[in-house]
């Protein structure tokens, strides 16, 4: 495949970026999107140019590092995949592909396609945990009776890899799918009940402080989420916050 790539280039956080056109040739349809980017970067390095900076780590769809807004969608046109799992067979020979960083005021660009997603970490630190005494007499989690239904729902919520595709896809740059998933995974389990009130209040407060937008229920986040996190988690977070506010 021969492709034209329109890629956002930005030297550093304080520079003004712009779209730059590149050509890549002989791309195999079996390559992942990141491998195609590797081919481009090899080409750029060989010609003495600066390679395109992009986030990646596990390259098997589990770490949540790879991002990129490809042809107007987070992680590209395929469903239920991260960019590393997106294959070039989703594109046609001669295509022009637009590649941009995830956009949100709370996700500032660091360089080219790399954005700072530490806002998610700060939200997690505000309450996305349970306090367990690990002095040696910790209770076995399996000793607690939990219904299969609740365990499954909690596990579904816990599959969120915090990649930020929900924020990038949202027309309001809202982080509510991410925060909803993190609140839900504990709200559904007995271990999460002790800190339930503080958790939802603190995580929502931190989310607002980081400058994410307000959810208007478009559902774009759910469609673009590589892990299929359901909007139901946002509804549950809303219920949790309402309950917490009445206590």
């Amino acid at each position, binding site marked *: 495949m021969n492709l034209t790539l329109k890629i956002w280039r930005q030297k550093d956080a304080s520079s003004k970026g712009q779209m730059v056109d590149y050509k890549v040739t002989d791309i195999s349809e079996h390559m992942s999107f990141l491998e195609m980017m590797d081919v481009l970067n090899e080409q750029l390095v060989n010609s003495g140019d600066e390679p395109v900076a992009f986030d990646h780590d596990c390259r098997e769809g589990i770490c949540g590092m790879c991002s990129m807004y490809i042809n107007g969608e987070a992680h590209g046109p395929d469903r239920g995949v991260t960019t590393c799992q997106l294959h070039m067979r989703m594109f046609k020979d001669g295509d022009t592909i637009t590649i941009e960083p995830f956009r949100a005021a709370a996700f500032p660009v660091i360089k080219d396609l790399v954005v700072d997603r530490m806002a998610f970490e700060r939200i997690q630190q505000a309450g996305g945990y349970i306090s367990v005494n690990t002095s040696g007499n910790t209770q076995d989690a399996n000793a607690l009776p939990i219904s299969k239904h609740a365990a499954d729902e909690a596990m579904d919520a816990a599959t969120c890899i915090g990649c930020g595709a929900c924020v990038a896809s949202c027309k309001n740059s809202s982080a509510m799918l991410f925060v909803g998933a993190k609140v839900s995974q504990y709200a559904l389990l007995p271990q999460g009940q002790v800190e339930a009130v503080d958790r939802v209040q603190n995580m929502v*407060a931190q989310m607002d402080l980081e400058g994410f937008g307000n959810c208007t229920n478009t559902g774009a986040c759910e469609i673009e989420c590589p892990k299929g996190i359901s909007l139901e988690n946002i509804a549950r977070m809303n219920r949790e916050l309402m309950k917490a506010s009445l206590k």
Partner: protein
Amino acid sequence: MSGFFKSSIGRKVAMALSAFFLMFFLLQHFAINSLSVFSADLFNEVSHFMGTNWLIQFVMQPILILGVVFHFVMGFILELKNKKANGVSYAKNNGAANSSWMSRNMIWSGVAILAFIILHFIDFWFPEINTKFIQGDWSGMHDGELRYFHELQHKFLSPIRVGAYVLAFIFLALHLLHGFTSAFQSMGATAGRKKTLQTIGKAYSIIIPFGFIIIAVYHHLNHH
């Protein structure tokens, strides 16, 4: 609780609560207007009751105006905040791939409805306030009969006004097609009830606005 309404989720809930109130109002407005198609006398009687009952005039009407103003003002505030949260715009954004046109354009369907409400106030509400509160005429009478049905038909003589009403109600339908279920989602409706809510939402969003369109067109074609 005051802290709750300052949070992003609290604002969503406040938008949803005002939306529920406005949707209930719309339903009763439609029920009364639809009487005009079946019986001029009944429409006159009910309109006179609504227009002169103190509870409706001095309690419900101010609450309604507050609800309308709140929904619009909060809608605009949230839109501005969301725009600020966006940062730099995408060079290419394929919104249609993951969301409905209605959900992405609530602000524009809302602006169209606001424009309609201004026209509607000029048409009906301001003359009503003038008659009752400035001229002090609470009789509801004109030329020896209750005036409401005659006023309604008179307003729909102009095809331009009927056209504007039809267009506004199409925007209202588009606004409701997303807004109805969105309000329930904001209130934390559970997934189990989603299908039922979606069906009720679609029915409400289509039947009510198109019912209003039929009433306007009916009076345009059948004026005496």
